[in-house]
């Protein structure tokens, strides 16, 4: 059917360009509850996504460009879909922009070979490893787990000559650990997305969460705090790269689309911080070529090859992440979809960053700063006050501050780690953050 769609698009003289993607997904899902396996699912999907460009003109008669899209399931009417997309493209008059041309697509590792061969067996194995790792601890119970394994295949063809394929795997897991002591109950929840089972680090992650679950039984509401706050591993990843509901502030402000819309005040060569930089200087890349990165690919939805884009160099803004459309609008290089966040290693050992006193936030309820202003007031699900040689657990309270101000006063660890969407220092010490506690 892909060839039929391509042939039909080639017949259209009213189009300035087109892209078609054939996307196939197959996977398996396992869901567990305390009583056993709640649900076992096998899932397949296949669709064709068509994007077209059409020359139009503005109300004043200047050349313009319109875009339209359509999706097809196998067996759907190809010409009807193309007609619809073409019709829509004729309705709008945006600045002239184009499509990417052929390029060398890097060979970014994206697959778990075992999952490609037998997703069902691999995901059953992951579920069993979660169960075995949790059952070692008599005082903690695994009360829910979900394991999804998927294989995605994309074949992209466009009117400028791109004809490329890529295959990737994706593993999503969630688990809940529960404990009880008298009337007090506690739980911890974790969700992870990786491309390979090997990158889940399952046993270590569950060991950590067993400890958090037990410590949570002793947790109280924190007092208010102003001073050093430490983020590590998953909490730091969420701070830097966002979660699957929200991107980070950096993703918004470094986006060419935001610049074009008047949302981002950042200028190339200008500072990204509004005040004095008191901590380590800040450099960050948006990296789609990171091996096994959750947001990595060989090419994106437009057909732009994977790139590693230096967004911020030594506290100065270096480049916008730009799709072809916004690159053409702003007359800047196209870099494609944003990808993963990468930071260079810091200069301080993680051990030194853990000097007392400090607060360590292990888990946010949902770290969701305002993507434009960077202001946040976010509830803390679980953390520790570390002082006088003790780690006192707490739940609740709000971390209050501004995202970019926080990054202007942070020190990064020399040791790095890979966390799916983030590669960089695994520990960060923010020197002056405020926690609004439950008591003064």
């Amino acid at each position, binding site marked *: 059917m892909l060839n039929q769609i391509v042939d039909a698009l080639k017949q259209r003289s009213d189009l300035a360009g087109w892209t078609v993607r054939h996307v196939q*997904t197959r996977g398996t899902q396992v869901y567990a*509850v*305390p*009583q*056993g*396996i*709640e*649900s*076992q*699912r*096998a899932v*397949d*999907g*296949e*669709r064709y*996504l068509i994007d077209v460009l059409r020359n139009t003109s503005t109300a004043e008669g200047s050349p313009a460009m319109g*875009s*339209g899209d359509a*999706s097809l*399931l*196998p*067996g759907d009417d190809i010409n009807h879909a193309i007609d619809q997309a073409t*019709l*829509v493209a004729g*309705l*709008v008059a*945006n600045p002239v922009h184009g499509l990417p041309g052929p390029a060398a697509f890097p060979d970014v590792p994206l697959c778990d070979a075992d999952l490609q061969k037998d997703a069902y067996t691999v995901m059953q194995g992951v579920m069993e490893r979660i169960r075995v790792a949790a059952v070692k601890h008599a005082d903690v119970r695994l*009360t*829910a787990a979900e394991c999804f394994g998927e294989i995605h295949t994309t074949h992209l063809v466009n009117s400028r000559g791109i004809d490329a394929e890529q295959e990737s795997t994706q593993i*999503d897991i969630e688990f*809940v650990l*529960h404990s009880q002591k008298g009337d007090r*109950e506690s*739980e911890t929840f974790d*969700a992870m997305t990786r491309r390979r089972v090997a990158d889940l680090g399952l046993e270590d992650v569950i060991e950590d969460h067993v400890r958090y679950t037990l410590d949570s039984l002793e947790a109280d509401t924190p007092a208010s705090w102003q001073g050093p706050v430490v983020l590590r591993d998953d909490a730091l990843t969420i701070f830097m790269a966002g*979660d*699957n*509901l929200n991107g980070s502030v950096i993703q918004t402000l470094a986006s060419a689309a935001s610049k074009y*819309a*008047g*949302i*981002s*005040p950042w200028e190339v060569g200008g500072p990204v911080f509004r005040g004095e930089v008191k901590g380590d200087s800040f450099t960050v890349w948006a990296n789609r070529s990171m091996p096994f990165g959750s947001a990595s690919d060989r090419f994106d939805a437009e057909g732009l090859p994977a790139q590693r884009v230096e967004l911020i160099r030594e506290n100065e803004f270096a480049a916008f992440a730009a799709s072809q459309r916004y690159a053409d*609008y702003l007359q800047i290089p196209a870099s494609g979809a944003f990808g993963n966040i990468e930071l260079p290693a810091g200069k301080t050992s993680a051990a030194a960053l853990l000097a007392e006193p400090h607060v360590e936030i292990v888990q946010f*309820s*949902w770290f969701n700063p*305002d993507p*434009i*202003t960077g*202001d946040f*007031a*976010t*509830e803390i*699900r679980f953390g520790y006050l570390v002082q006088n040689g003790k780690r006192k657990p707490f739940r*609740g309270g*709000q971390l*209050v501050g501004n995202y970019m101000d926080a990054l202007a006063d942070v020190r990064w660890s020399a040791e790095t780690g890979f966390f799916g969407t983030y590669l960089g220092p695994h520990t960060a010490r923010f020197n002056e953050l405020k926690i*609004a506690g*439950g008591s*003064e």
Partner: protein
Amino acid sequence: MPELKLPSAMADLRPALGEIVGLGSQRAPYFSALLSSRHGLTILVDNREEQVTERPPAAGTVLSAFDGATNFERAIGGFTREEIQKAARDFINGISFQRYMPEAQSEHRGDFVTPVQIDPMELSVQEKLDRCREVQRRVKGRDPRIVNVRVMYRELNEHTVFADPHADLAQRVQRVGMFVIVIVAGPAGDVRYDVLVKSGSAGWEVLSWSDEEIQSVVDGALALLSAERIEPGEYRIITAPGVSGTICHESFGHGVETDMFLKERARAAHFIDKVVGSPLVNIADDPSQPGSYGSYFFDDEGYMAAPTQIVENGVFRRGITDRYSAAALEIPRSANGRRQDYSRKAYARMSNTYFAPGTSRLEDMIAQVDQGIFLDKWSSGMEDPQGWGIQVTCHYGHEIKGGKITDRVFAPIGISGYVPDVLQSITAVSNKLHMDGGTCGKGHKEQVPVASGGPYLLLTARLG
């Protein structure tokens, strides 16, 4: 009267579902088939560009076989008759089902369509685009500090067919929403924005804007240029309906999804028929609420929509269920078994969840507050069913001083606290109900359309 208008492949497959269900029922204790198509349209108009994009459709068939212990499912993209028939034969082979007698069900047959006055499926894309342009034109010139005005229209068309040995159901649910986003810049280049949203399970008739509404979003954005951060602490607050709804959604919405009871994740499981809030607190979930964004006629497990009273006069009564958790916990069903789309399983999910209105007048409530905060708009929330912590982030709020709302604005503002403490502190509930539509996840995935709302509430909470 709008028509069902099933996608053609779905309509072609529907007559074969009786045979497919019969085939599956020969081996599985309970067998059902769901055809689900969710597609839509997004239109964006701002000062600098326009976009019309299709929402990528999620369309497929789910065959479910349930034996009381495990729900086995085969989900297949599309509605190809031969492929579905083959899958129905193949996928239950090799499964060793436990003995299970499904609960007796009454017969349900019928086709249902969201009532609309201006049917989005009858309007051309050009007409919808022109309507968005008109709204954008009305907003953009109102103040020189406006750097952009974004009008975003979202249309979601859901077609569902459900069949099991006792049901043959079809529905078309039509949802629409429009966002007006005003972006302003201050003299130092600082950028702020405000948003106004209208939505419903309805047609374009719910997407009209008065001049006052349009001016309010411009004024909101401009006021944010001088917003302060609030001093953390405990405050008397009045929550606008959207904020009330978010508190409701995150506390006795997510907290009473009974799959969470099964997973021992919900503290509410220990509080059935116990006091959890002030006697003024009444909370319900109602997928049959006319016009609200989260409405439907039957859930993704074929259960007919009806209201559920969750909290009655401050006492927690019952949760909302999917089939699996209701069977495992041996509790009555409610029509809340919902899927993100065919590729995901059904969970217990909210529909339209709200605090019921009371008897107070807003003016009287404000007059009761000597020093406090009026929370105008919510921006996000997150559940904590086990810990009963609450996180609701508000885009902004106004100071209340001497029983009057002042021009002093704080942003953003986080509400935190222990759910029963927050609900116990409610001392007045206003007399008007307003619902806000949106999208809700289970944790960080499984997105479904919902609405939440309520009246204005007067309560005490920690802000930061």
